């Protein structure tokens, strides 16, 4: 069976509060770590990387979507993006 590299990126929905992003932004601003460069609107998400073995790319994409929607992301507060490439 062909193998695919898959990636799911899960981010908080833009309208939902992202306390983690806010806290990191606040800490960075206080620490002045980025010098002249300003860092803003930090959002923190999750990345899942995995191998998929599927009959074809469509099947892999389909399975990845199910996985992301049902397990990896919480649709109440998160959105996700998928990527599938040949191994």
């Amino acid at each position, binding site marked *: 069976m062909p193998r695919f590299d898959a990636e799911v990126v899960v981010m908080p929905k833009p309208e939902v509060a992202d*306390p983690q992003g806010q806290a990191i932004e606040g800490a960075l601003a206080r620490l002045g770590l980025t010098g002249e460069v300003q860092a803003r609107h930090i959002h*923190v998400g999750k990345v899942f990387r995995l191998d998929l073995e599927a009959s074809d790319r469509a099947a892999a994409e389909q399975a990845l979507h199910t996985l992301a929607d049902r397990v990896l992301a919480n649709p109440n507060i998160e959105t996700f993006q998928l990527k599938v490439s040949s191994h």
Partner: protein
Amino acid sequence: MRVAVIVFPGSNCDRDCLHVCRAVLGWEAIACWHREALPSAVDLVILPGGFSYGDYLRTGALAALSPIMGDVRRFAAGGGHVLGICNGFQILCEAGLLPGALRINRDLLFHCEEVALHVERRDTAFSSACPERIVLPIAHREGNYVAGGETLRRLEEERRVVFRYEQDVNGAANRIAGIINEGGNVLGLMPHPERASEPLLGSTGGLSVFASLAAAVAA
């Protein structure tokens, strides 16, 4: 004995450490806000448990960058005793004062319970008064110690694992519960000795850690 307990935003065992130092041990203990300078002439710095910066990013990561950590680093470099408990251990690792890192427990769950520890060495500033085995509470979700193979090998070879869980409680490499730095003056410990320092609360295993420190400072 003069102790500084560092308070980061999100620390939540700072008051517990202060209570034990003052009311149980009769030490002078100063709460020190992370944006202030470390008070002078302290004998011991405690980095208490809690959720500094909400445990966001990585446990201990943002606190490790706090202004006061510069002072703590200098204090440690000068041979001062530093005890990092739970989140304090995580901060010490993130700050590079101790090797390795603490990751999420193998079962991904927070554990609040008492665990038995084997005291591997009783010739350190933190363990000279400890019996061979002590029971201390743990309360963490990120207590799973990890380090590269080489680092682990050195830790064991140099006998820098001071406390080891009797049972595997969180997946930590070599069941490591507490390690010491090369200089023997900085200790990170996941279990909470301050929670086991009064008979009323069930156990007093933690007192031996503090008693060791008192002896080391007096020496």
